[in-house]
Each structure stands twice: as structure tokens, then as C-alpha cells.
């Protein structure tokens, strides 16, 4: 059996068990050539296990992994043309920065001088040439991070694996590194597989995201798909902020579902395959797709009172108390205050939804 050789990585029915515990339950996914692919999920969801299985550090209990069509799941790590950027960088403490970067090249048979020349180029790429002669302990976390990146990219791997590489950096540096990583990926044309638990990071950097939870793949898609059309409760809740409402589906007409929530409020949204009339399901509405008004604007307007306004820099988050329904969060961009109104706490008002804002969720 062989894989589809246009895919950088193809994982087929991969299962990982540790004794009685199943870390991965039959995962199948394809990662395209030259893609920035992210495995996203909370800790313990199996994303790092999957990455380590691709790298070769973990055995595959069942299933297959293909790299550009070649089956690799039985190869030891040193026989796989993939390289890893480790979470704690794992730089060799006794070697200089230059020798750290040259290590992989030397192991692949380059002469010492060739390897060092190429390592020097890589250090230039990550702007660390002036530190070539230092030891890793003499560098800051951000610099060590870039050395780890240069070291993993130097042997020109077919796929680069990144295991939460930015988690130890402070916010500002992390944001800068996110862009730098994205640029590096485009410049080198190497497929990146990035593991993170930070949904914002995933949305910023990725071409496609696989959201994982409890050893299962929850949803796979482009950042906009995942954010705007979450498939289930977990994805809607994990990615971004959302209002989750329990609703009952009353009727479905020409692709639209009419639902009601407690207190007689009625909402209409796109029907979703697998959710029929009479089912009690959850609905997700992103706070920034809601706005407030004095008078009800259309059928979907919900009556309520402002409980609290919270200033969060770019936005104002308003907590709204609805009649006989759980509280709602409405987000108004500060730049949008000309068009959208903010009400004082205690004011009676109506919450309105932009078209397509509400989304029904499976389970």
C-alpha cells in the first residue's frame, strides 16, 4: 500500500495507546505540500503525540504514516527526512551556535567546512551571525529559539515539525516570531507542521488547522472555516469567544432552521446536516457579530438589559442580561462606535445579529 505522493504527510487511521490509555483514536488527515499546517488543541489532546509519531519519537500502535508517498512509520527518527524544533529548543549545550546548526548537515555526510558554511548562511537567515561562536547558554530565549529553527532548517528537511516553539517567549516576541515563522515558511517552501494550544497563534499563522480534543480530530479547515463555521461545541468554545445557547429546532424550511430558546426568543439560522426538527442542540454566536439598538430591528432581535461594560483596549465587551435566557456577550469595536451604540449599564435595549452569525452545532 502506498500513499498519495502529492501530500507532504498522510496519516491513515493512526492509533496510539499507552497500556490501557488511548492517546490517539484513529486519526486520519492529509497535510499538503508547502502548507503551514497547525495541530491545535488543549494540553493532553494528542497533538504532540501525533507530531512525535511523525518525527519518529513515538511508535505507531496502529495505522500508517506517509511522507510524500513513502511509508515512514517504521523508520527510526534519524532515517526520516523531517526535522523538529523542540519546545525547550534542545540545543546542544557543549557546542557553539554554529556547530549546533551544522550538526544535522555533518550527520548527513557534509564535510565539516561545508556544513559550517551552510550553517553560517542559516544563521544569517535568522539574523544571528554575530553569535556563531557563542554557546547556547549565552543567548536569550528568543535567540535560542531562532537557533533551534536554523538548526532544524539547515539540512533542508522535507517537512519541518514545530512543537509549541513559541510557548516560552513573552507576548511581544511571540507575535514577532509568528510573523517571522510565516515568512520563513514561504521563503523556504518547506511544509511546516506546527503544534500549539494557542488558538490565536493558530489562526494567525496557519493555512489550515486541525482542531483536536481527547485524541480525536474535531475539525479540519482554513482558519476562517474553523472560526466562522465551527462544526461542534468543542470547536466553537475553544476557538475565540462565543455565546453558546441551548436551543430547540422548531422547523426547517428551505435550508433555514427556526429555533427557539428560553423565554420565547426566536432565532433563524442556516440548517446543518444531521440536526433535525425537534432536536435540542447548541447554537454559537460570536460576540463581535452582535450589535445593540433601542428598538427591535428584525425578527431575531432579543430584548434585554445591559449588565456591565468591560473595556478591553480595541473593543468594549458588553454583558447583556436576556429575559429568561443566559447572559449574552456583545463585542463592539472601539473604531466602530460611530455606527454602533454602547448603552449604559441598566438600560433596556435589543440585541441584533448580523446575517449568518448564528451557527448550529453538532453535539
Amino acid at each position, binding site marked *: 500500500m502506498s500513499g498519495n505522493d502529492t501530500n507532504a504527510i498522510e496519516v491513515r487511521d493512526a492509533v496510539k495507546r499507552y497500556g490501557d490509555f488511548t492517546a490517539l483514536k484513529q486519526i486520519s488527515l492529509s497535510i499538503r505540500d508547502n502548507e503551514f499546517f497547525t495541530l491545535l488543541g488543549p494540553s493532553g489532546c494528542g497533538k504532540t503525540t501525533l507530531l512525535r509519531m511523525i*518525527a*519518529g*519519537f513515538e511508535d505507531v500502535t496502529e495505522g500508517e504514516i506517509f511522507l510524500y508517498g513513502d511509508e515512514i512509520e517504521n523508520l*527510526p*527518527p*534519524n532515517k526520516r527526512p*523531517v*526535522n*523538529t524544533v*523542540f519546545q*525547550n529548543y*534542545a*540545543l*546542544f*549545550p*557543549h557546542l*557553539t551556535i554554529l556547530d549546533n546548526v551544522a*550538526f*544535522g548537515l555533518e*550527520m*548527513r555526510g557534509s564535510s565539516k567546512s561545508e556544513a559550517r558554511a551552510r550553517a553560517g548562511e542559516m544563521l544569517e537567515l535568522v539574523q544571528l551571525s554575530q553569535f556563531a*561562536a557563542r*554557546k547556547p547558554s549565552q543567548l536569550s530565549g528568543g535567540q535560542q529559539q531562532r537557533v533551534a529553527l536554523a*538548526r*532544524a532548517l539547515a*539540512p533542508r528537511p522535507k517537512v519541518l515539525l514545530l512543537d509549541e516553539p513559541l510557548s516560552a517567549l513573552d507576548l511581544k516576541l511571540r507575535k514577532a516570531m509568528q510573523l517571522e515563522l510565516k515568512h520563513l515558511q514561504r521563503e523556504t517552501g518547506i511544509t511546516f507542521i506546527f503544534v500549539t494550544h494557542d488558538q490565536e497563534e493558530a489562526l494567525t499563522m496557519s493555512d489550515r488547522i486541525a482542531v483536536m480534543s481527547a485524541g480525536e480530530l474535531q475539525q479540519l479547515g482554513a482558519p476562517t472555516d474553523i472560526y466562522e463555521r465551527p462544526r461542534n461545541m468543542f470547536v466553537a468554545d475553544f476557538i475565540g469567544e462565543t455565546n453558546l445557547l441551548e436551543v430547540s429546532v422548531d422547523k426547517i424550511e428551505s435550508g433555514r432552521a427556526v429555533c427557539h430558546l428560553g423565554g420565547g426568543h426566536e432565532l433563524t439560522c442556516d440548517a446543518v446536516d444531521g440536526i433535525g426538527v425537534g432536536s435540542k442542540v447548541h447554537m454559537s454566536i460570536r460576540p463581535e457579530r452582535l450589535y445593540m439598538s433601542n428598538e427591535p430591528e428584525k425578527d431575531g432581535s432579543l430584548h434585554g438589559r445591559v449588565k456591565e461594560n468591560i473595556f478591553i483596549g480595541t473593543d468594549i465587551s458588553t454583558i447583556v442580561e436576556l429575559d429568561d435566557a443566559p447572559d449574552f456577550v456583545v463585542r463592539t469595536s472601539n473604531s466602530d462606535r460611530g455606527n454602533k451604540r454602547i448603552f449604559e449599564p441598566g438600560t433596556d435595549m435589543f440585541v441584533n445579529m448580523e446575517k449568518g452569525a448564528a451557527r448550529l452545532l453538532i453535539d
Partner: protein
Amino acid sequence: MAGGAASGGSATTDTYKEARTWLLMPAWVTLSILVLAPVAMMLVYSFLTKEFRGGVIWEFSLAAYDQFFCDRGLFGDEPCTIEWTYLQIFWRSIWQAGTATLLSLAIGFPTAYFIATRPEHTRPMWVFLITIPYWVNLLIRTVSMKFLLRDQGPLNDFLINIGLIDSPIHIVNTNFAVQLGLFYSYLPFMVLPIYAAVERYNFSLSEAAADLYATKWVTLRRVLLPAVKPGVIAGCILVFVPSMGSFLAPDLLGGAKNFMIGSLIEEQFKGNAGNWPFGAAASMILMTMVLVLLLLYARQQARAEKAEG
């Protein structure tokens, strides 16, 4: 550290200094009584004149060192030529201790690595198991070893029974028996520091090496060994130094031909035949030699590190 306190004014500096003096006192007292005083005593004794039934006469003399280094003929009245007897014993001691150290390293390193890679909660048990034989007195263990290794002993019986050899191999009273004895006596001193170093080792470094196409052997040589080198060096020193001065294993397993420096020193302080100044001088020479070896090693290391950086 003192600089930080100094900026706070002279009063705090004085208090701080005083506190430091007092707090360091126990360490200084212990070191003085247990390290400096014995060495000083030994140094003084080595320059005194011997008393015939053991002990010393308080009279300055270079006789002990002269006896060690100078051959003055049968009647002791010829000019000094080099005395080889004791230097040979020294050389044999270095050789035996060095071999025993390498043997301990060869067995101790894999053992330490094995323990350090067991699940964390089982590691204390493995360390405990390593130390159990050492609850038995060293003398008894060495005598037992002689029994095991002798011509009609269990080892030879076993080898003959499985048909590997036809007649017993003579192990007792050879250099090899002494090396085995020293190896067995000091093995834990090799295992424990290496275990401590490997336990602190960041195993993702080995993963990183494998990820960068290094084979297991290259990973061991170029990544693991440099990282745990301090533990390996500590282990080697802890085995080599006591092996050099050991007298039980050479006496019991080596016989008269395989005399080591420790036995030589021991004899000088035993019974009426002894020569205290000579024993003290031999001890001083042994200590100086070990120190010089260690210093040479440290200098070579510093130089290698400089060349690398």
C-alpha cells in the same frame, strides 16, 4: 554578593561580614580537623627520625625521602643512584588503579544509564540494590572474592563443568585478581555520580540528535557523553584515588608479588617492624602525585575548552 550589601552602607556590610564569618565557622572547623590537621601531621612526621619500635624521635631528618628515592648500596654508604623498588610499586599502583577505573567505567556507565532511564518511582529501589552488597564489611567481601576465584573455587568449577576450559585458570595472585577486587570494591562510587548526571540529562537532546540524523552511537559519543562528563570524571576520581592507596585487595588477592603502595604504607605503621617517617613520606608522595595528576587533567581540560570556544 558582597557588593550588593556594600551599597547599603558600612554598618550593614560589617554585620553581613560578621554573620558570614560565624556561619562559615562549622565548615572551617570541620575542614581543619579532618583535612588540614592530618595532612600537616603527616608532613611533619615524614621529616622526623624513626624510632625502632614504631613511633618517632623529634629530630629533623630527610632519611625517609632519601630511602624512597636513593639507592645507596648494601651498607648505605654509596652515592645516591635512583632507587627503583618503590617507584615500581608506585607505577604498579597507578596501572592497577587505572585498569580498575576503566573496568568500573565500562560496567558502571551502562548500569547508571539503565537506572536513570527506569520509571522515576523505581529508581530509588535500583540505587538501593546497588548499595546492598556494600553493607558487608570490605574485608569479608574481599576474602569471599578470593574464595570464588581460587583454582578449586566455584568460578573455575563452573567453567570446567560447562566445558569452556579443561584445567582451572589461575586468577588469584595475579594482577587481574587485584583489578577485579578494586573494581568490585569501588563500583558504586562510579555508578552513583554518573547516575546523578544522567538523571539530570535532558533526554530531548538525544531526540534532537536522532532527529538530526545521528545514529545511536554518535548520539552517545557526541551528545550524551559530553553532557554527563562531570559525573564520569567524578566517578573516575572516586574510584581511582582510593584504588591507588588500597591495601586489602592487593594483599588478599594479589599476593606478595603484586604489592601496591597502600600495602607498603600499611606495613610501616604495623607492629614493631614499622618505620613511621618512611610511611608518612610515602603517603605524602602518593598524595602529591594524585594531586599533580588531577591538576594536569584540569589544565588540559581548561585548554581544550579554550581551544574549542
